[in-house]
């Protein structure tokens, strides 16, 4: 009696773990796969199930005349995203590296400031930044978006680099110095390889987030330069243009490829 109950409980356990677990997994990636499927839809509207297979939306998306504005928006957004990654890397990697070695009291009091943007809504920040800008008599511009993105997304890289830098044995750098290496050589040959996976992972996150951000871009962006997420949302809202699905397909593919590359490269200890 007790035995059958125990057996039943164990069976239930595995049904729950595997059954519900896989169900949740499907729930997480289902919508993404659906977006991918829809992008090959041959019909003119985005109904599910799709009417047939075609590459027409991709053709249309890559057509430089029909989709010129999308290309421009993508170019603008990639420009901002790459600049953001560069700026963030420049200020964040050295800071995370230094703070991993700084006295606990110092790093403990500084880290909350550097990590705050992770939990503060970027919308509120965007509003605040816009107010500050207007107070200074400046207008939205490329630089404003760049700085805004850097401020909001820097913690993403800070966290990934800090994690690795903290786990890096400080004796490695000392060993390098006792072996006669200069500070620069020590940094390039010893410290940097240690935190590089963190920089890559962080750069990836920052890039994706910058490319995807709406609120900061919206408030701080130059109205004459359309950015990709705004453009895509306008498309999504104005008419369910199949190109939205095609863009989704491209973005999913990009994310997946980068993810696999990252996994191969050094994600082994990035997280």
């Amino acid at each position, binding site marked *: 009696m007790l035995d059958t109950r125990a057996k039943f409980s164990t069976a239930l356990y595995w049904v729950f773990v595997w059954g519900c677990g896989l169900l949740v997994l499907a729930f997480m990636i289902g919508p993404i796969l659906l977006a991918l499927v829809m992008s090959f839809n041959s019909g003119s509207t985005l109904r599910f199930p799709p009417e047939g297979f075609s590459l027409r939306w991709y053709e249309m998306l890559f057509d430089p005349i029909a989709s010129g504005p999308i290309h421009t928006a993508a170019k603008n957004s990639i420009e901002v995203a790459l600049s953001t990654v560069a700026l963030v890397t420049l200020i964040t990697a050295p800071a995370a590296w230094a703070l991993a070695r700084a006295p606990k009291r110092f790093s403990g009091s500084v880290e909350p400031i550097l990590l705050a943007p992770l939990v503060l809504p970027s919308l509120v920040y965007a509003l605040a930044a816009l107010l500050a800008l207007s107070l200074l008599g400046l207008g939205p511009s490329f630089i404003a978006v760049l700085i805004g993105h850097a401020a909001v997304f820097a913690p993403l890289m800070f966290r990934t680099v800090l994690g690795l830098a903290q786990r890096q*044995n400080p*004796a*490695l750098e*000392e*060993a*390098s*110095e*006792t*072996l*006669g*290496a*200069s500070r620069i*050589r020590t940094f390039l*040959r*010893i410290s940097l*390889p*240690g935190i590089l996976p963190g920089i890559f992972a962080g750069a990836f996150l920052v890039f994706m987030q910058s490319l995807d951000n709406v609120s900061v871009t919206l408030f701080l962006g130059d109205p004459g330069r359309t950015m990709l997420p705004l453009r895509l949302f306008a498309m999504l809202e104005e008419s369910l243009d199949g190109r939205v699905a095609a863009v989704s397909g491209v973005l999913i593919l990009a994310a997946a490829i980068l993810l696999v590359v990252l996994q191969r490269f050094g994600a082994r200890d990035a997280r």
Partner: protein
Amino acid sequence: MMSDTGLHIRNVDHSYGDKQVLHDVSFDVPDGKVVALLGPSGCGKSTILRAIAGLITPDRGTISLAGCDLTRVQVRNRKLGMVFQNFALFSHMTVAENIAYGLAHLPKTERKARVERLLELVRLMPFADRFPPSLSGGQQQRVAVARALATDPAALLMDEPFGALDRALRAELQAELVRMQDDVGITTVMVTHDQEEAQAVAGQLVVMNDGRVEQVGTPEEIYDRPASLFVNGFIGHANQVAATVTGPGGLRTADGTEIAMNRAVNFIPGAPVTVTSRPEHLTLSTRIHPGAMQARFDRAVVMGQFLTIDATLADGTAVKAQVLRDDGPRPEKGEAVWLSPDTSRLHVFPANTNGA
């Protein structure tokens, strides 16, 4: 003592924040000799090693090597080899690359030859292209030593070089280090908390406690003539008994046993002292004996030809004695026994106040 060869540490003080961790540390390492810095963890031995390496700048004092003052020299120009605790190998470089790291200034062929020579020295030739994480602890240690020796350093510093290894391997590598030291003959400072290791490898010990040098000497000197109660207890076992000075050569232990020393002690009568004795300098008897302390027999453990005896004095002090197994009595547990010390081997220190 010549001051233009060897490594000399003079009056070094250092503080981390408000906490002073080194107090007026001075000792010398003769050219080509191995000195072990020995002490419990947190005694400042690693700090002094780091000060020698240049990884920290001491608040006061000088460090000189072969006549040159190192105090103002940058780490990378000190030309010292260092073996770190847990080895600090560069895990993203191969064994050969690790060893070659300090040889960037050499031409390629010369560098290659030197790396090969060192690989041979530490017998790691087949592992040249492996990455450190795939090696065993002993092999990693040898890579660390080879890397430190590669630059042909004026002195070698080793921070707990055997700490990460298991016991059997440790003895083997210690022997190997001694062999290598005989070959290379390099001035070496080694930090350890393990007295046996220190004694096995080093000709000179520097015993440190609480940021201070307690005693410098050969292992034998330190064992036989400890300069302090701490050293006495730290190197080998020392039974400690509270006593009072009764006269120029007389003591009375806490339980009233009168001990007559064969020499004068430099304490004024009435001063509280701690008397120490090595286990092997106590003899056991089941009958009352003049000058012997009465104790309760607890147990005896066979250690080869010796018997290690645990007993407890009337005031609760635990005492160990080591006697030859063949002769001597075998009391029952709880039986009263008498322990008589070899008075010529007793040490007398001011009363132990900190309980160390």
